[in-house]
């Protein structure tokens, strides 16, 4: 079979899809589920902008095949905030001006809110683990300014 049927739970909702085997989790998230908060930049697992939480761990969704995510629980940036209310870590990013163009921000936030802090429904804010710029190996910052990246 060159395609596979998968079931994935994204932000609390189960989805059933049939995907070509080479389709990545990122392509499913953005293309099939239309959750475009997760970004695609390098597409090779080097920049972190596609970071989602899979079964409690931050992963680069561009190098996870959709078939590998079968049966797993995924949380994207959209799953972090309720409508109209930001998660404390998002508020912290805003307060510190850490958003700028915002393209890499969802990946940064998903990497920080699970990279090392406890996860779980308690929603324990990882804002306390934000040590300025020191806490996010695995996320590339694309800075603002006259140069676009």
């Amino acid at each position, binding site marked *: 079979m060159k395609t596979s049927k998968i079931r994935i739970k994204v932000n609390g909702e189960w989805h059933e899809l049939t995907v070509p085997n080479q389709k990545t989790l990122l392509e499913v998230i953005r293309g099939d589920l239309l959750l475009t908060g997760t970004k695609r930049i390098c597409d090779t697992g080097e920049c972190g902008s596609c970071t989602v939480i899979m079964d409690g761990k931050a992963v680069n969704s561009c190098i996870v095949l959709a078939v590998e995510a079968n049966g797993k629980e995924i949380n994207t940036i959209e799953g972090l905030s309720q409508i109209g209310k930001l998660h404390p870590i998002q508020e912290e990013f805003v307060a510190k001006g*850490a958003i700028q163009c915002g*393209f890499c921000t969802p990946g940064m936030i998903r990497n920080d809110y699970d990279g090392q802090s406890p996860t779980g429904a308690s929603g324990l804010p990882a804002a306390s683990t934000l040590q300025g710029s020191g806490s996010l190996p695995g996320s590339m910052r694309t800075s603002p300014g*006259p140069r676009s990246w």
Partner: protein
Amino acid sequence: MNDDGSVNLATSCTEIGSGSNTVFAQMTSEVLGVEPEKIHVVFGDTENCPMGWGSRASRNTAVGGMAVKLAAEDARNQLLNVVAEKMEIHPNDLEIRKGRIYVKGTPSRAVTIAEAVRLNRYRKNGQAIMATAHWDAPSELADKVTGRGNFSFAFSFGAKAIEVEVDARTGKVEIVQVVAAQDVGLAINPLGIKCQIEGGVHMGLGYALTEEIMLDPTGRMVNDHLVDYKILTPLDMPPVESIIVEPIDPIGPFGAKGVGEMATIGTPEAISAAIHDAARVWVKDPPFTPEKVWAALQKKEEGP
């Protein structure tokens, strides 16, 4: 301006993350007395905003901002005129603040901005509160013969102090601390400016230490992945202290100038000088990779 007192601001300047949208909302708010949250900035598509020249040359705040200010002032005058007419007083006797237009000295005699907008519209020959502005910054291209001119209406100045540690055994350069001072005219959004400076320093440090486009003899990039086109990671960033210097510019909107490009400038130069201060070798071709510094140190040891 909309019936609820909110503002739609269509600008030719494109927000690329430097915060120009926020600055324009702030400027509009300052002039019009409307809260920034009620100002919707529209940008980026000539289908619904004016054609722009681009977010470069550090010009959004300085040049785009002046157009915003002029348009806001025009709208302000329209608002004051309609209220003055209604109250049968002179527009100069009116004040506009925090969503209200009131008589100077008698704040109870007031209407809300929203009411003023509706007042202007819902009457015979009524009109929307609308304004357009364009600003051509005063500059002179260099004369072809004399070479004299004034290319920009304002010039920015900055300084960077960088402390490094050089591991003489491997050539690795650690950045201990960066202090960046920048003359921005009036700082419209200090947090935004500090973030710009930090971002610019990040770019400057990458340019100085790790970033390089490597080409093969046919011109193809050989390091076309981020593992080898090395952008500094958050772990590599040193503490950056940003100092905002505010000499008020005589021409810029509210006295503001530009920020963006200056934020990077001076970084590689300061690092090169710091490496020399630490290790007594000059390395001048960025990026000053550990290998280059090491090679310079080896050469120095070998002597002439």
